[in-house]
């Protein structure tokens, strides 16, 4: 999912970040659709163009997301004795 968009973002994030530092960008296929001040504006911008289709939204210059969901990753949501 979004393989093309993620590769395009990785290739251009530094360049876009120098122009729109901290902005939320919308990427579809190999095209930068827009840069927005907030994630809500980016979601609205993406939905305006693509409706309910998938499109990539990422913040420029944001540190890598550190996601921890122990219950999910450890499979501990339920255990029976």
């Amino acid at each position, binding site marked *: 999912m979004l393989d093309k968009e993620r590769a395009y973002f990785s290739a251009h994030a530094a360049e876009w970040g120098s122009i729109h530092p901290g902005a939320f960008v919308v990427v579809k296929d190999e095209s930068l659709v827009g840069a927005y001040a907030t994630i809500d504006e980016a979601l609205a911008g993406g939905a305006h163009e693509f409706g309910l289709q998938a499109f990539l939204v990422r913040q420029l210059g944001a540190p890598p997301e550190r996601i921890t*969901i122990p219950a*999910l*990753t450890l499979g501990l949501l339920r255990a029976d004795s």
Partner: protein
Amino acid sequence: MPILNIQLTGAIETPDGKRVTLSGQAALLQRGPVVQVSISVGQAIAQQVLQQGGELPPPVAGLALIDTGATTTCIDEEAAQVLKLPAIDVVTVASASHASSERNVYPISIEVVGLPIVVNAPRSIGAELKAQGLLLLIGRDVLQSCVLVYNGPAGLFTLTL
């Protein structure tokens, strides 16, 4: 500021088939802090789709477990497909029990039944929760806007948004 007090009750079936009513304390211990929620596509997207004359699937209702150990809210992947949620990113989730896997990221709106407020979780992660009887794990991305009081001895918890 809306406040939701939840006192859990429940019953279990013993090995010999007897049904035993649980105390509030035991029910909260068994089930954890769960709330009834209704999930729909994130508001920013929903508004655009509706403005353009599009249609949205009806919200999906189910149980959400409040998980203070999770940085990020998770939605059941099957429900995400039913809601036709657009994926807006992909993240890799490591697991202790099997290989790392890629999960879609979805923008969702959460209505907690009993609270007159809709909360947006713009980067919720798709996960297989249905088998656990859950629609949602509410993570700290949502809880950062809430006050949660967990009263174990009384078997109740309070959520304020």
